[in-house]
């Protein structure tokens, strides 16, 4: 459908038809005190030439920086073919696929995406995606409460889950009267940086609906997912896995955690073909076991046959979405991140299972190699020795902010400072090395950090 704006005479005719003098009068219902007269932080419009110059300036700030920051958004190589295909008009301009007869290609693509996600997670069903990882966690918690009919309206969330995810979760579920009970990760010994399953088993948290298990956790550390899953199930609770889809190429699928597997799996989809783009848009993954599908938010594309017996695709399980069920919908999210899912699906299809495994293994090798190099520097140590994926925590002799500033001079983005969210960790820096880094890059970082600490 083309976008054709109303002409002035259209607008006049419509206003005359309803007996209103001007468009502003349509908003009379809103008390004047609530109206924002001017938007303080939004500057006036600029000519195209000036906008282009402004954006080139912003782009230059990022250009040529060697990036070792992760913390939930990761730099990966995206084959050039991915966005070349995504930006084809058929994908790029297509809106949400309500009309099955008009959007078989989009529907098939989402169906393929769902299939790939169920294979990576070991779950039975995946939805067509949500907005991002953090909101997907909130949706999973709301879903868990619906699944457990007489849920405790309490969820257990370790502090090893991304701080922004925990904040988003609380923002969304507080008003639904669901209590988010945070508990600490282990700070010493062999399990430092993760949840100590044996410690957890000795705690009494009272009744709870679900345990959130991050794999890989915020510090890049692998959690004891089998023991944690079995413990939560033994307490009569559900398990919500928070995953990185790329890491699942080399890790055990959440569907195989413990004796019965995780019940709901969510994650940030960005590592699969979505550029960093200064923080978004990204997309959220949500998958679950078959028995919970009726409580799953979002939409699902199903494969079916038409009247002539030909295979085709259609939206299914829509009946619980907002446009039909209104206030009683499973979620107020009634859409999906179509374009980003398109990129992810093409990305995964191009790499294939073996390609994804190689990328993931390369990330792990690079992170391990960099960790060894940095830990050898005087005054630097690694507080969490548990095995990890492509990220690790460093304890520094000076503040992480200082190190980040000094390395920025050498055009290196050193990582993410942890002092604000985890003051107890002291001068801690979260460092990430993906497959995009070469041996020379790792050397350059180690040398620059060595100089910065001298």
């Amino acid at each position, binding site marked *: 459908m083309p976008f054709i704006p109303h002409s002035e005479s259209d607008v006049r005719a419509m206003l005359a038809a309803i007996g209103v003098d001007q468009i502003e009068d349509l908003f009379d219902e809103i008390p004047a005190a609530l109206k924002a007269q001017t938007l303080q932080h939004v500057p006036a419009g600029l000519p195209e030439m000036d906008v282009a110059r402004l954006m080139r300036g912003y782009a230059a700030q990022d250009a040529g920086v060697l990036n070792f920051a992760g913390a939930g958004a990761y730099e990966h190589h995206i084959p050039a073919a991915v966005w070349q295909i995504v930006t084809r008009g058929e994908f790029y301009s297509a809106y949400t696929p309500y009309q099955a007869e008009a959007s078989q290609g989009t529907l098939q693509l989402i169906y393929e995406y769902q299939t790939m996600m169920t294979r990576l997670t070991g779950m039975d069903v995946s939805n067509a995606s949500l907005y991002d990882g953090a909101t997907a966690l909130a949706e999973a918690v709301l879903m868990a409460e619906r699944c457990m009919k007489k849920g405790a309206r309490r969820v257990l969330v370790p502090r090893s889950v991304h701080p922004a995810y925990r904040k988003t979760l609380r923002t969304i579920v507080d008003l639904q009267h669901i209590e988010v009970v945070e508990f600490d990760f282990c700070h010493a010994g062999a399990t430092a940086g993760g949840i100590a399953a044996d410690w957890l088993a000795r705690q009494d948290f009272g009744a709870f609906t679900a345990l959130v298990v991050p794999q890989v956790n915020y510090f890049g550390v692998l959690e004891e997912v089998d023991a944690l899953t079995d413990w939560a199930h033994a307490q009569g609770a559900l398990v919500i896995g928070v995953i990185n889809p790329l890491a699942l190429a080399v890790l055990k699928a959440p569907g195989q955690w413990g004796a019965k597997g995780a019940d709901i799996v969510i994650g940030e989809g960005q590592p699969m073909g979505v550029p960093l783009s200064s923080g978004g848009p990204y997309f959220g993954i949500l998958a679950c076991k078959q028995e919970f599908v*009726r409580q799953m938010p979002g939409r699902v594309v199903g494969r079916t046959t038409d009247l002539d017996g030909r295979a085709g695709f259609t939206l299914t399980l829509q*009946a619980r979405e907002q446009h039909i*069920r209104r206030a009683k919908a499973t979620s107020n999210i009634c859409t999906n991140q179509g374009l980003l899912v398109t990129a992810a699906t093409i990305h995964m299809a191009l790499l294939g299972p073996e390609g994804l495994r190689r990328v993931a293994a390369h990330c792990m090798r690079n992170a391990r190699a960099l960790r060894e190099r940095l830990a050898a520097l005087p005054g630097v140590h690694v507080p969490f020795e548990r095995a990890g994926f492509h990220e690790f925590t460093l304890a520094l002799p000076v503040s992480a902010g200082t190190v980040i500033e000094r390395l920025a001079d050498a055009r290196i983005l050193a990582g993410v400072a942890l002092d604000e969210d985890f003051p107890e960790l002291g001068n801690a820096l979260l460092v990430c090395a993906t497959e995009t880094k070469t041996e020379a890059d790792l050397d350059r970082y180690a040398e620059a950090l060595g100089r910065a600490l001298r």
Partner: protein
Amino acid sequence: MSEIPGDLKFLKSHEWARLEDDGLVRVGISEHAQSQLGDLVYVELPGVGDAVTVGNACAVVESVKAASDVYTPVSGTVVEVNEALSDKPETINEDAYGEGWIFAVKPSNPEDMEALLDPDAYAELLDEEDAH
């Protein structure tokens, strides 16, 4: 319009209630409701032992185009649920007033039945809805 069995009472929201010899009230959705919903694909049943009050939504019927709450016409305790609907929700489409019952309540207030519509009043309600 098919015949409405005379022993049924109705809510305006299209649930039926039948007081049985053993004192239980069996509940389902009307022929009209099932035809409006279309092919049912899922029924979410209440739990046996649930205490319910008139006006409570205690089940959900879901078709390919809508999911609707089922309200209980009487207060009391849910004593039976139609488990067969889990595998064959289409039973409601095929036999709304018989095999398609959804749950049975042991009523705590027998007068609840008197507040419901009789078949004639319900048929009138449907005529009015048609007229709109």
